[in-house]
């Protein structure tokens, strides 16, 4: 939807120049990344709203969002870095630190908690030898808590990469990782 600025005129570019001197990150994003971001832009009312998608696109290629990547995306969308950081740090699915090859999201919300989510977390910590927010030394797994995966009736649940695991128990966790390691 195009914005209507009722009173504002579009004064010709000679006089209302909104051009920008190219910023320091002008060449940072790849053509592919830019193209995918451009594709998202018309789908939202404001550039601000594109922020989350843009971050996801870039993260898809780079694995995580470094400070420089954050700044490059902000520059590309003409957003302030602080604003985009607000978006990046709000969503669990955006990584501001390098993560392992697989990310384990265990649910720490109410239903899962009632159904023994805490034991699941303890088991995961024990099995992987890391605390939530950390990555295993071999760079394989990162453990991240998440608020409700929308599968409450099968609580407790977790997601490893894209794969959901339901009705978790300590036993089940052992099995899952036994299979993975095999």
């Amino acid at each position, binding site marked *: 939807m195009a*914005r*209507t*600025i*009722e*009173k*504002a*005129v579009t*004064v*010709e570019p*000679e*006089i*209302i*120049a*909104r*051009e*920008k*001197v190219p910023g*320091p*990150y*002008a*060449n*940072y*994003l*790849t053509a592919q990344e830019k193209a995918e971001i451009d594709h998202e832009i018309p789908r939202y009312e404001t550039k601000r709203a594109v922020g989350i998608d843009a971050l996801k696109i870039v993260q898809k*290629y*780079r*694995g*995580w*969002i*470094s*400070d*420089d*990547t*954050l*700044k*490059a995306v902000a520059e590309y969308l003409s957003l*302030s*870095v*602080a*604003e*985009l*950081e*607000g978006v*990046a*740090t*709000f969503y669990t699915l955006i990584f*501001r*630190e*390098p993560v392992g090859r697989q990310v384990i999201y265990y649910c720490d919300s109410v239903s899962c908690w009632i159904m023994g989510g805490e034991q699941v977390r303890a088991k995961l910590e024990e099995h992987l030898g890391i605390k939530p927010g950390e990555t295993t030394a071999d760079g394989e797994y990162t453990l991240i808590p998440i608020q409700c995966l929308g599968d409450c009736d099968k609580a407790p649940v977790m997601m490893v990469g894209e794969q959901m695991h339901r009705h978790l128990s300590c036993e089940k966790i052992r099995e899952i990782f036994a299979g993975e390691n095999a």
Partner: protein
Amino acid sequence: MPKIKIDGKEYEVEAGQNLLHTCLSLGLDLPYFCWHPEMGSVGACRQCAVTQYANEEDERGRLVMGCMTPVTDGGIYSIGDQSAQDFRSAVIEDLMTNHPHDCPVCEEGGECHLQDMTEMSGHTVRYYEGSKRTHVNQDLGPFINHEMNRCITCYRCVRYYREYAGGTDLAALGRNYQVYFGRQQDGALESEFAGNLVEVCPTGVFTDKTFSGHYARKWDLQTAPSVCNHCAVGCNTTPGERYGALRRVVNRYHGDINGYFLCDRGRFGYEYVNSELRLKRVLGAAEKDLLATTATKDTKVFPEISPQKGVQKLAELLSPDSARQVIGIGSPRATLENNFALRQFVGDENFYLGVSPRAASLMEGCKSLHASPDTRSPTIPDIEAADAVFILGEDVSNTAPRVALALRQSVRNAVLDKARKLKIPTWQDAAVRQLDDGERSPLFIAATEPTRLADVVSGLLVAAPQDLARFGFAVAHTIDPSAPAVTGLSQPQQRAAVQVAEWLMSARNPLLVTGSGCQSEDIIEASRNITRALAKHRAAPVNTCIVQPEANSLGLSLLQPETPTAHQQHLMQVAQLVEENQEAGLGTCLVILENDLFTRIDPHIAERLIRGAKTVVVLDVLLTGTTQRADLIFPASAVVESQGTFVSNEGRAQHFYPVYEGSDYIQESWRWLADAALYFCQHNTEFPPHIEAMANWEHTADVDAALQNAVPGLAGISEIPPDRNFRISGLKVARQTHRYSGRTAMYANLCVAEKKQPVDDDSPLSYSMEGAHSEAPPALASSSWAPGWNSNQSINKFQDEVGGHLRGGESGLRLTLEEAGSDSGWKTEIPNAFAADPEQLLIVPRYCVFGSDELSNEAPGVRELSARAKLLVSSLDADRLDIRNHDRVGLQIRDQDLELDAELCADLPAGMVCLPMGIPGLPHIDLDISAYAGLRLVQRAATAPVSRNPSPDIAPETGGQQ
């Protein structure tokens, strides 16, 4: 007016307001956090809960948020209801689970809204025993401390910083339990209004870093009502002193000027007062051959002399001597009183304005625009109410910052109107912001650079000053075709001129903002035509904000004597006079008042002027280039140590009082001059009447009385300050709080006897904790306090309604200026269009909120930020000269060579550069003499390591903080 009942009592209240606003305006205590009178309600903190009853029979009622509930006729509410009290107390208890309770080491302590509200809510015992979340703090630059652990997540900071002040580098980061209010990474906050966070944040997260260096509790500070002297907006301030040093400056509410907010130059520029460059003693220069040094023969040394000796020497200038001429050089940064005393001392015909010819003529132009019947000068609330604004040639963010903050609010009027149409109360901030689809009240900026308001403009024209003036003339012609037309305007400019004219003509409250920022008389002339045309169209004067650079620019121009032989009173005239006198074998004695000539005119000419004078007397606050060349130096009071008057851009004469007495021999400049007059009269039998009159000046009121007799435009000025004999129940107003501590002991390290408090004969204020406190009228009230309200929010208790006017009347006198000549009709001299010359770039002045103000540059934090000042270069010229952003460039201006960093701007037309003015370390460039420069690359900026395109694999970069 709706009638409501609160806790059984009936009130008649303003319709359309929310209950919190209403309760506070009625003087009732109701706690709140997220609401702020300037920012409206979002209902986030749940602190302002009250019980609302459906009818008289309803006994249980239901909880509502005061700030989100419109008052309705017949409404029945209770603040004291137990369930509401319990709820509020529980909310605080919840907020406090993470709060460190570190009041004893917190600089907010004693003036903390959180402390006040906690007490008010009745939550006085802490039960929570769990651990608290902690945060890593950031370095936010020289002005502001960050202590995130104290945050109660009320979101006021980001709402103020982003939505109200337009800042972009502060945000709410993280989520849940871990919300963090900060920057993306360490670094100075970018907004020039960041300092208000110190007062906006209800806790000790953001505190004043400059204050930390010499901290004292609020109740231990001695304060007095003062006025900011770092630009001509005239914001009201409360500076605080302890142990003879200035500790900080905070906002002092004025309903017609600053309201709740200052700019950072005004808040943090105060430290110049404590600077090592401060003059405190009378010094008489002696030339000395310094053996075995590299000093040149005429290097001066400045042995201290006794004040009596100094005054005697100054008095010698009063004895008639046909072999010399005594010239007084005034200053736009000195008070009316000091300037007037100098004028009286040297005689009207020998008084000069102390500015360059261009500045003098601009002062004259601004004054006459002020006096024009076509203009009316707007208050800050008037500016906020404007629904169409045209800024012509002024970068207000840097020359009158508080005005820029008001303009930022003005563009919201379109959205506010829309809300009103939809019957959404304008205080419903979240709802109103939802409505905001980008529609804005028009703000068109025609300036020499995009300026910091560019993010809210409806249109922008960046051009050379002469082209801006031409554009202005074209707007006037469009409004009224009988105004002279401009030929040769480009099509887009022509169309934009039509658009701007339409906006101005169809607006209810149009506003023109103009001023001397471009140093262009043409722009003032064009403004003349615009106001004339628009006033005719509206059959009413046009709100016109006329910006001049210094605290008393307008006041000084009023002091220009109207002698029959009206001479041009600028410094070049003095330079010429000195030379003529030299040739005629006459000596010239200069008495220079609070002025550094090297910042006013070409430094070579200033040097010649001073060297050519026989005697140079300087009265000033700081050791400046001019002071160093003086023969006799008197220490002058800084504003915080003086009583005096400034005339702001609004044309408001504002009186201020000393917070403390300056140390050593510091006193107001007029007193030195009056002392000399007295000495002269005592030691001579014949003396002119005006010197005799001066000799009798004892109090500031005496000077003001003489001033208003001598200067017609200043009629009424001596009635502004409450009379020095003014008393409240027989008491003076106390400068110290009733809790001021340690007075009997604070100087015990020097002498065990209690030091006598200084006596203030000059004003109705006392240097004491004894006296009237909260009862003082606004003009004398330096800081507000009410039982239970220790923070700045206590101002609620002194306003006719929250966020409204101060009870007892806003201080200051709006002067009515009379236009000198008769109405001169249309201005017809339209300048030629700017023609770019690739070899010789036009130099256009650029002002920096940190860096272009002489005095605040001596505050270390301001000085640090002034180093950011850059030369603005057009991308077109940069491409041609192979200059990139941030490169070091050289500017060849006649015989001077400047080096500074370049900032590229794609909006800037080719052929001009914007040179920052007044920056420490850069010589003053007199644009009257050197208007053009050659530009070259000196050194390529170190390229940031980020302009690479790393492979899409995981880059081994350092992580963020989450």
